């Protein structure tokens, strides 16, 4: 019976069912797309790390890219509790192929890695590793560089260039997640030669014997003697999770907003079918069906529609995540080998499916209200307005009080603990939705007041339509409000962050007119051998001074800190705009001496540090004590930064290798011209890149924009999807009212009058949503800016950009009203006879 009746329904209302299904599918797609984008970053890195470490559970790791002597591996292998041990050399390099270059981490391995099951190796890879004499590239790197097996590619490492043959291209079937990872694999001797780290490795992976993890860790710590770290094999993932936290949290907020929008979208799509479903229920009752049969029928139809539409939505969402959302922030790839693998988990699919089905079931419940004994034939004799899902004014008032109360509560909550901002952002969105019904009451009253005094036929028609505060109108305004809220809040926070980062990097780079680095999208963390480069540059006419800038990453607990070691001649040593605590002149004087550092506030708070206190930094030569000269923002690197003097760096990191050469030009010398002269002077060092201050600033700004691109793409897509959803739902709602509109024509209303009335009504529904969304969005923006500043330490001072808010509203309104104006005109032109019976 259930299947038969649904087939009957599909035959008679195929278009309506298709429209409802499309709405649900779009909602589910939005939810899934954002969920995938939100989880793929760390999940793909997790898959990669699992792939590299295999069965290893512990690792001995160097505190800088200089690594440690490979001879230590032999000693380590003899330690009690070691089942298998395999050394690895990891260095950042660039692979240049026939069609382009790709920044990757070169992984130098020994055949011993097979014993750990690392690199997803099997017997076939074993053969490659033993007998391969070249570089093995994952398919994604091969595609980016255009390299094929047998080709000779260039490897730029530590300022030098080497030519090497590609021995194999590794696909997903052989190396799993590695095939989408930015890595290049070589046997240890080749990797050491390419990176200029002869006889050195950066980590050793260990698989302890069963039950000896603690013992082995103790032994390794003794071996490390405070100069190396002993950590779990998957420590990298924890470091990445910390680094990606702000990114994850901001996309989480978006995911939550998208879930709400998607849910409302699906509910709305179903609401369009409600009037006709109510009549269907009434007909069935007349035919003698009891309430159980009808409920089963409604439930079955909603379930089938929900499942089919949600599956379509899941496929669409997967496509969306591929096309729009899957961009890896460049700033993270400088420190972690994050792959482009998309992770579509079962949990995500089930969540998206549940959202779609639940929304469909909920929205299709309303015809069941007609099963109450007092309303046996309401649907048959009810006015055919389709506006049967009304909210009472009492409900609207209670909801608005709850909404205002929740916003007040959120404010108190977030002021107390900035870390609750993300939860507060979601709660703010819900509170905002609660206020919408009451606003309809207020707007309706205001229009009525105006209608009593102004001669406007459109106004009176609109007042009549709006007086019925329908769940559909509220849902439509809610979708618009959520989209505007999300776009304004996240867009605003993004703009603040971008502005803050640009100011920060501009100050950070202003210490030199020209920068000589290993190139690439890095934070000046890759060192190189000077080998006379600074002397050659110093001889270039117009060069006033050349200074060695040093730096890199240092793992400390769950943080991968950005170490900035500036030469004493740099001005300023600390970017003034990023100073949070301490005196700039005093802190600068201290940094020019020894044993002082400026540290990120977040890091300082975690270790209860303040200006004047001291802390131990785990350097490659052992723990070194530093005094806190000042606290600063995280300088755009979420795990935090430490600024110290280059002389301290040389002492504790035991290296003279610069990460950059900072060149100051004589007054009046053109930086671009000087750069060309330096390129000539360094002709034999193709691995070094030379950029003017302007070029390097532009690169940093581009990287910052790229890192935040996913946010802006999601915001725009959310807005466009919401605009189209509101437009289509409003258009469908208008279309359903054609008979009543036609009756007004018989009363003497013209097409133009009706069209204006429909547009006015749409403007009001959109307007209520947009105004509420914009206000909540600005408030959410302020909360987010505070969260970025306090909880994450990013340089993101709040600034209200009304033009951007206006642009957001204009985009939504333009898309929605364009669609509605066409549909409205078609409905207004409905022939008057539509309202007649024959």
């Amino acid at each position: 019976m259930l299947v038969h009746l649904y087939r009957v329904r599909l035959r008679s209302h195929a278009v309506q069912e298709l429209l409802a299904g499309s709405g649900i599918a779009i909602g589910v797609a939005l939810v899934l797309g954002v969920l995938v984008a939100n989880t793929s970053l760390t999940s793909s890195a997790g898959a990669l790390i699992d792939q590299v470490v295999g069965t290893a559970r512990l690792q001995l790791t160097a505190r800088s890219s200089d690594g440690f002597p490979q001879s230590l591996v032999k000693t380590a292998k003899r330690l009690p509790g070691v089942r298998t041990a395999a050394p690895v050399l990891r260095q950042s390099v660039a692979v240049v192929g026939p069609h382009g270059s790709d920044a990757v981490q070169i992984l130098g391995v020994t055949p011993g890695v097979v014993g750990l099951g690392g690199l997803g190796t099997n017997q076939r890879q074993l053969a490659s590793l033993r007998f391969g004499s070249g570089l093995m590239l994952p398919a994604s790197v091969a595609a980016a560089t255009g390299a094929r097996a047998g080709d000779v590619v260039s490897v730029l490492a530590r300022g030098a260039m080497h030519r090497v043959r590609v021995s194999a291209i590794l696909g997903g079937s052989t190396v799993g997640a590695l095939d989408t990872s930015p890595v290049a694999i070589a046997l240890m001797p080749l990797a050491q030669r390419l990176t200029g780290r002869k006889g050195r490795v950066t980590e050793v992976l260990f698989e302890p014997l069963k039950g000896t993890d603690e013992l082995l860790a103790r032994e390794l710590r003794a071996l490390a003697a405070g100069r190396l770290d002993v950590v779990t094999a998957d420590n990298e993932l924890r470091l990445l999770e910390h680094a990606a936290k702000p990114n994850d949290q901001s996309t989480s907020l978006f995911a939550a907003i998208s879930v709400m929008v998607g849910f409302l979208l699906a509910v709305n799509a179903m609401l369009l079918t409600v009037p006709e479903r109510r009549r269907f229920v009434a007909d069935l009752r007349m035919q003698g069906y009891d309430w159980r049969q009808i409920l089963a029928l409604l439930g079955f139809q909603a379930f089938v529609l929900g499942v089919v539409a949600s599956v379509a939505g899941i496929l669409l969402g997967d496509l969306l995540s591929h096309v729009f959302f899957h961009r890896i922030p460049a700033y993270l790839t400088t420190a972690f080998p994050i792959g482009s693998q998309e992770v579509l988990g079962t949990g995500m699919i089930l969540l998206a499916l549940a959202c779609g089905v639940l929304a469909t079931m909920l929205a299709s419940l309303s015809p069941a209200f007609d099963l109450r004994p007092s309303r046996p034939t309401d649907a048959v004799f009810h006015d055919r307005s389709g506006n049967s899902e009304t909210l009472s004014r009492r409900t609207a008032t209670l909801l608005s009080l709850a909404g205002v109360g929740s916003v007040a509560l959120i404010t108190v909550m977030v002021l107390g603990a900035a870390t609750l901002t993300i939860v507060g952002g979601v709660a703010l969105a819900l509170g905002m939705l609660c206020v919408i019904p009451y606003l309809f009451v207020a707007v309706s009253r205001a229009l009525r007041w105006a209608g009593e005094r102004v001669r406007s036929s459109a106004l009176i028609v609109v007042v009549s339509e709006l007086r019925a505060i329908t769940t559909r109108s509220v849902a439509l305004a809610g979708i618009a409000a959520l989209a505007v809220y999300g776009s304004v809040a996240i867009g605003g926070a993004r703009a603040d962050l971008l502005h803050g980062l640009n100011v920060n990097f501009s100050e950070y780079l202003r210490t030199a007119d020209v920068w000589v680095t290993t190139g690439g999208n890095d934070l000046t963390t890759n060192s190189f051998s000077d080998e006379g480069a600074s002397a050659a540059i110093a001889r270039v006419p117009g060069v006033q001074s050349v200074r060695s800038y040093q730096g890199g990453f240092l793992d400390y607990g769950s943080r991968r800190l950005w170490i900035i070691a500036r030469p004493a001649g740099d001005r300023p040593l600390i970017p003034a705009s990023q100073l949070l605590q301490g005196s700039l002149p005093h802190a600068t004087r201290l940094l020019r001496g020894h044993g002082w550092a400026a540290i990120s506030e977040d890091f300082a708070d975690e270790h209860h540090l303040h200006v004047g206190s001291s802390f131990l930094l785990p350097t490659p030569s052992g723990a070194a004590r530093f005094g806190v000269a000042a606290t600063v923002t995280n300088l755009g690197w979420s795990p935090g930064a430490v600024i110290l003097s280059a002389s301290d760096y040389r002492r504790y990191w035991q290296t003279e290798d610069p990460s950059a050469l900072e060149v100051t030009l004589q007054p009046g010398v053109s930086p671009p011209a000087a750069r060309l002269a330096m390129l000539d002077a360094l002709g034999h060092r193709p691995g070094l890149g030379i950029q003017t201050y302007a070029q390097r600033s532009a690169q940093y700004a581009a990287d910052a924009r790229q890192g935040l691109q996913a946010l802006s793409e999601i915001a725009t897509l959310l807005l466009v999807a919401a605009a189209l959803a509101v437009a289509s739902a409003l258009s469908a709602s208008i279309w359903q009212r054609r008979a009543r509109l036609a009756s007004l024509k018989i009363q003497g209303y013209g097409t133009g009058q009706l069209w204006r009335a429909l547009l006015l009504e749409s403007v009001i529904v959109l307007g209520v949503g947009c105004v509420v969304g914009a206000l909540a969005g600005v408030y959410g923006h302020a909360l987010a800016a505070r969260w970025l500043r306090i909880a994450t330490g990013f340089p993101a001072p709040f600034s209200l950009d009304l033009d951007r808010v206006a642009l957001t509203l204009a985009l939504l309104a333009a898309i929605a009203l364009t669609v509605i104006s066409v549909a409205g005109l078609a409905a207004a032109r409905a022939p008057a006879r539509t309202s007649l019976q024959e």
Partner: protein
Amino acid sequence: MSTLELREVSKRYATSVETVTAVDRVSLSVSSGEFVALYGPSGSGKTTLLMLAAGLTAPDHGSVLFDGQNVGALSERDSARYRRQDVGFVFQSFHLMPHTSALDNATIKLTGSGFTLREARGQALPWLARVGLAARVEHTPEQLSMGERQRVAIARALVSDPRLLLADEPTGNLDSLRSQEILGLMRDVCHERDIPGVLVTHDLEATRFVDRVYTLRDGHLIDGMDSELAATSP
């Protein structure tokens, strides 16, 4: 004195398959104060005739005159003005604005003519009283019975002081008792206001309330009740 006059009016509808003659050379005259019924089965052309009278469609042949004005030749704008100012129209399914008071529903035609809501209400109140809804002017359609809803629709039709009353199956959704009330009311209004009224119905019982009956069958108008049809009517 107003008169509705149809002279040799024909109307055809072309479909992809065939051309149907809905009204075929119909001539009819309804004088002031006269309430007539166009009786006929479904598909006989009743509603087409009503649409012709309301200026909603133009005849293919012949002319529709109201007070000497050729209604079929009016522009869309003039046609809308004609319906707004001269015609009161009552529908079977009322077409009231939901969740809007009876009073405001009754004003909808006046506000379309440029009245403010306040002015329109002043004019609508006496009409609602006239149809027996003085005590229920603030009730919304959902709070009114079917008969009361139709009374609101009649008040809405009359509030602009029309010179022609047209009704399309106005009792189709009402029970027998309510039908009698509504039809009696419409007849009385036509007599009181001295305006012509046309009732389209397929309900034989409804014809008892009119001054004259015409039968429409396959587009042809027959003066009086078609006895064959009457015999088969339920």
